[in-house]
């Protein structure tokens, strides 16, 4: 089909555009759903949905993703019929269409990963084929008279006339702005595209109609565009936005209610100059692979910079005057840091965008469970690395599913307990610092039942939320006797923990109160690629540990550390002891021994304090070597993969230095948080 190979290069752009179109399709489905619930039809959203699916179909046909063509084709047919029936879909149809979109997503991601395509359930295709438009809503009697010349009126669809009339009834003005394109205007940046964008910022454009302008005695003929919109902005503001004289703005109908035309409103509606600027410069889609390439080059630069640093140190040791060189290198370091933050900024995606998809998840859950749930999203302007967003999102979905399925009570039960029938699930996100993101998933449901969790796990009832969380995260634990359709047996907290703690090196916290609700807190790094790390020495070897995982570095007084006996050989010293830290005893692990280098010859003088799930533990090391910016390379070879080792980094000497994951290490040593096996 694409035999000539000319089209082979479009894979990346195909995936990028289809991803956008699928997001648009989801958004339109939600809009249609919202309209239907209000008893209204939404022809515009139906058309936009159709358009998104149609484009996906065409593009997929070009790159040869046939199953997507088959699904979107059926969805399109259903929507075409709907459009004819005034945009009225029966509510159950939304679910079938959502399933269709999900299936398309699965096919596209299989194509992206070169994986085996999923099997489209024949039931889905049949359900799509069987979709029929709902009854058309009773036609709205259009009692609003619109002043439209025949050429314009002819170009408007019934729903567009309805939209205009509805807007007028709601108190907005229906206005027509005429714009005549010319080469001079285009040269000045005034085109129908920019004018549409600017005017659109001041109101809701219902339609743009192209018109032929007959030649007159004074002016040659040509074309013009009539922008028909609903707005609260003044004629002057509209004329300014369109770059035309105020005589080009004409009312189609006055607003019914007194129109808010105070200057203050107009000011508010003026586009923010900064935003305008962003619009003009535009955005572009970049293949993540290319960003990774840039990151690779940067990584090489960081490594060579570290090497230069070592050479410089060697020169200094030989007594060479290196002041100028040192200054130049300092400058160089600063630039590398700047470059690094620029590249990282490019990789940043708004968290709010990723979270939007939760609305669909909750919508589905609401229907499946019959519970009344409101989803509040609050991510503000927070951004994080795309790689982090992609990984953490499934964990958030999981927590939201669990909340609706297990934590939220049925409406009757809520009423009985004096709670509002509609439950609330809130997902919020804040940047805790320049390096860490904090996501919270809270509900006002029944809280986690400690006794039940303990019974299920055959463990004593945990004290404190940290211990409870640990129990919940044991693989395969469920507090549900029966599987629910949406989140199975409530399994999967172990998966959430794996994603947050092990994959992302973050932290998972729980706060729950019986009868009042539960909050999960996920703290994850904003980016993955480059991290600040402490270098230290242990058993004459160098290691690194990410700064973000270390609570503090403390001095160790060897005389005050008490090691217990070894569990293996009688008489030998064990690797876990107890030391004092600010008045309380904390466990301290002898890292030399823990890493299998045998007992240390000289007593450790420093310890890295790591805190996880509210628990504190110290790792004794030989000496600290300073702080570095490093690029962590994961060890992907399963033979090399060792619990407790997060990856390797090059400190500039060409030798790989292992980056330790002290949290995982502590689990391996049986030093997990409260309630886990072994030593406490």
């Amino acid at each position, binding site marked *: 089909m694409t035999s000539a190979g000319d089209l082979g290069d479009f894979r990346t752009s195909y995936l990028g555009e289809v991803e956008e179109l699928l997001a648009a399709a989801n958004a339109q489905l939600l809009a249609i759903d919202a309209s239907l619930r209000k008893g209204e039809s939404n022809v515009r959203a139906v058309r936009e949905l159709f358009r998104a699916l149609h484009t996906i179909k065409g593009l997929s*046909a070009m790159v040869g993703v046939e199953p997507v063509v088959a699904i979107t084709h059926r969805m399109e047919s259903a929507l075409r019929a709907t459009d004819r029936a005034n945009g009225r879909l029966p509510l159950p149809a939304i679910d079938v269409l959502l399933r269709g979109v999900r299936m398309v997503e699965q096919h596209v991601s299989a194509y992206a990963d070169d994986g085996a395509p999923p099997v489209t359930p024949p039931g889905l295709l049949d359900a799509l084929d069987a979709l029929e438009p709902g009854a058309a809503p009773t036609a709205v009697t259009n009692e609003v008279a619109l002043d439209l010349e025949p050429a314009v009126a002819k170009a408007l669809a019934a729903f567009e006339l309805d939209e205009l009339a509805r807007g007028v009834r709601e108190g907005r003005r229906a206005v027509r702005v005429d714009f005549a394109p010319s080469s001079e205007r285009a040269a000045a940046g005034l085109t129908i595209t920019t004018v549409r964008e600017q005017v659109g910022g001041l109101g809701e454009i219902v339609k743009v109609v192209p018109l032929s302008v007959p030649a007159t005695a004074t002016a040659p003929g040509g*074309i013009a565009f009539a922008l028909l919109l609903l707005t609260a902005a003044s004629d002057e503001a509209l004329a300014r936005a369109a770059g035309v004289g105020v005589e080009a703005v004409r009312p189609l109908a006055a607003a019914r209610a007194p129109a808010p035309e105070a200057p203050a409103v107009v000011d508010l509606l003026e586009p923010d100059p900064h935003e305008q600027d962003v619009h003009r410069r535009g955005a572009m889609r970049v293949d993540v692979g290319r960003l990774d390439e840039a990151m690779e080059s940067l990584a090489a630069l960081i490594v060579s910079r570290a090497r230069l640093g070592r050479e410089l140190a060697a020169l200094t040791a030989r007594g060479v005057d290196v002041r100028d060189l040192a200054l130049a290198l300092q400058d160089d370091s600063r630039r590398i840091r700047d470059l690094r933050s620029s590249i990282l900024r490019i990789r940043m995606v708004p968290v709010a965008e990723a979270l939007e998809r939760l609305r669909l998840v909750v919508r589905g859950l609401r229907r499946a469970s019959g519970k009344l749930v409101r989803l509040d999203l609050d991510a503000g302007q927070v951004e994080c690395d795309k790689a982090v967003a992609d990984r953490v999102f499934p964990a958030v979905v999981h927590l939201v599913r669990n909340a609706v399925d297990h934590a939220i009570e049925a409406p009757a039960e809520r009423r009985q307990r004096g709670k509002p029938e509609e439950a609330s699930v809130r997902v919020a996100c804040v940047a805790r610092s320049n390096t860490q993101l904090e996501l919270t998933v809270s509900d006002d449901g029944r809280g986690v039942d400690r006794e039940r969790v303990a019974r299920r796990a055959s463990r004593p009832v945990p004290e404190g939320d940290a211990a409870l969380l640990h129990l919940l995260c044991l693989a395969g634990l469920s507090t549900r006797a029966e599987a629910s359709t949406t989140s199975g047996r409530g399994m999967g907290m172990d998966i959430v923990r794996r994603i947050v703690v092990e994959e992302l090196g973050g932290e998972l916290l729980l706060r729950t109160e019986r009868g009042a609700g539960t909050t999960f807190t996920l703290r994850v790094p904003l980016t993955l690629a480059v991290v600040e790390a402490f270098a230290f020495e242990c058993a004459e070897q160098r290691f690194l540990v990410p700064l973000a995982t270390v609570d503090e570095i403390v001095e160790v007084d060897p005389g005050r550390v008490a090691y217990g006996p070894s569990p293996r050989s009688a008489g030998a010293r064990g690797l876990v002891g107890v030391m004092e830290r600010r008045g309380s005893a904390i466990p301290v692990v002898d890292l030399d021994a823990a890493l299998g280098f045998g007992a240390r010859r000289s007593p450790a003088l420093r310890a890295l304090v790591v805190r996880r799930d509210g628990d504190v533990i110290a790792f004794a090391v030989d000496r600290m070597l300073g702080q570095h910016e490093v690029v962590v390379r994961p060890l992907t070879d399963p033979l090399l993969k060792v619990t407790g080792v997060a990856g390797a980094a090059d400190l500039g000497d060409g030798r790989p230095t292992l980056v330790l994951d002290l949290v995982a290490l502590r689990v391996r040593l049986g030093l997990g948080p409260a309630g886990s096996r072994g030593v406490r």
Partner: protein
Amino acid sequence: MAEILVVDDSKVMREMLVACLRRVPGAAFTQAASGLEAIERLSLKHFDLVLLDLNMPDIGGIEVVEFVRAQDKLRALPVVIVTTRGDDGSRARALQAGATRFVTKPFTPEAILAEVTGLLGASGAPR
């Protein structure tokens, strides 16, 4: 020189079309991302051929064809509709509105190349 206007709201589709037609001798391409932009460009500059998508926001391909055919100086402009299979209804309406030819997605580069070179040759000596 053959000035070709490629109209599609999908950037990928526009780029695919341009890639397929690179071998048209002396071709110069202009892209438009909407029907409105297409009409504007056609009113400001001479084009020898238009490739037109049917499904676009604001005004679709059929409205563009209708508008183009109502303009004296654009009456003879060859308009190739690039459509997706299964669009029979839209095809009929586009034809009625005055579309010159159809190319159906998925198309091969050879097929569209042949269609376009044929039309450019037939519409008289390109400028």
